[in-house]
């Protein structure tokens, strides 16, 4: 647990009209500003864009934020983007939390008011959680310079050749007695109408 009190910044993304077309992002930001520990809450057109990320970094530095919440798309899409931004501004990347108000709110909710309420809940959840985030450090592991390619049809052969050409070891595993896959059975192939083997 961090010993300093939380100074949380909330950044609500319009995503063009993807979010703002349904969710009242300004209302969400005003609401977020009132949540415990929140120092600032702002909205921006495209939070994932360079100026959007710059805004986050700037606020971290200027306001001394120690926690960041971005309310935008799915974390599966941009969590890494914003973790990196936090890190660049000197914050531990795990002092960040994302609220998914696009895939799980604006795109799936008919009524704008209900969508706005749901977005507020998502932001409140993220704010509440991020206050309890602890600094973590990613582990790095070495990557062996060898690849396993499973299936030696067109795709497997092509991928194996490319990787092997770059000087790495490739194990090409094929279930059948010969490589070639379906391709070997084809006579002439489109569009060049030449033989396939």
């Amino acid at each position: 647990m961090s010993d300093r009190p939380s100074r949380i910044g909330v950044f609500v993304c319009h995503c063009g009209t993807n979010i703002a077309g349904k969710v009242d992002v300004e209302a969400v930001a005003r609401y977020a500003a009132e949540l415990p520990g929140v120092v600032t809450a702002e909205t921006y057109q495209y939070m994932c864009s360079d100026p959007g990320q710059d805004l986050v970094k700037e606020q971290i530095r200027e306001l001394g934020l120690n926690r960041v919440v971005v309310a935008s798309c799915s974390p599966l899409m941009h969590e890494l983007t914003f973790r990196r931004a936090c890190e660049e501004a000197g914050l531990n990347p795990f002092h960040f939390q994302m609220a998914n108000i696009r895939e799980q709110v604006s795109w799936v909710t008919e009524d704008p008011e209900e969508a706005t309420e749901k977005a507020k809940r998502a932001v409140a959840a993220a704010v509440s959680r991020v206050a309890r985030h602890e600094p973590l450090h990613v582990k790095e592991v070495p990557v062996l310079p060898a690849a396993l390619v499973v299936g030696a049809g067109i795709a497997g052969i092509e991928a194996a050749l490319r990787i092997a050409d770059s000087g790495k070891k490739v194990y090409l595993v094929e279930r059948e007695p010969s490589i070639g896959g379906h391709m070997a059975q084809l006579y002439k192939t489109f569009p060049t109408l030449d033989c396939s083997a």
Partner: protein
Amino acid sequence: MPEPKIVAYACTYCSYPGADLAGTLRIQYSPHVNIIRVLCSGRVSPELILRTFREGADGVLVLGCHYGDCHFVSGNHRTVKRVAVLRRILEYAGIEPERLRLEWVSASEGERFARIVDEFTETIRGLTPIEQVLA
């Protein structure tokens, strides 16, 4: 009657992307569900579920990968047993067991995710708000 409060714990490799897909496909569903991401449905401890009810959730959904499809091999097998036992405990405590539901949603099942949420919301609407039950 106030709108139902529902919390869905969704695993990160199947159900959470399944919920995202519902969005990508623009499938509209009931807005009363709050999705919380966990790495695997096996992470959802009995205590977490009970606490969720105590904090005022009218219903709890636990969403994981289909059998055999669990990214964490057999994490979801554990969840099945746990939820079954918990439902019995809930019933014993005078809380309708249908407030807790375990469902499998894969990353490609956006439609299924939305349908489950809608159905579950309807079920919960038919029950007394949990605050009155626990009061």
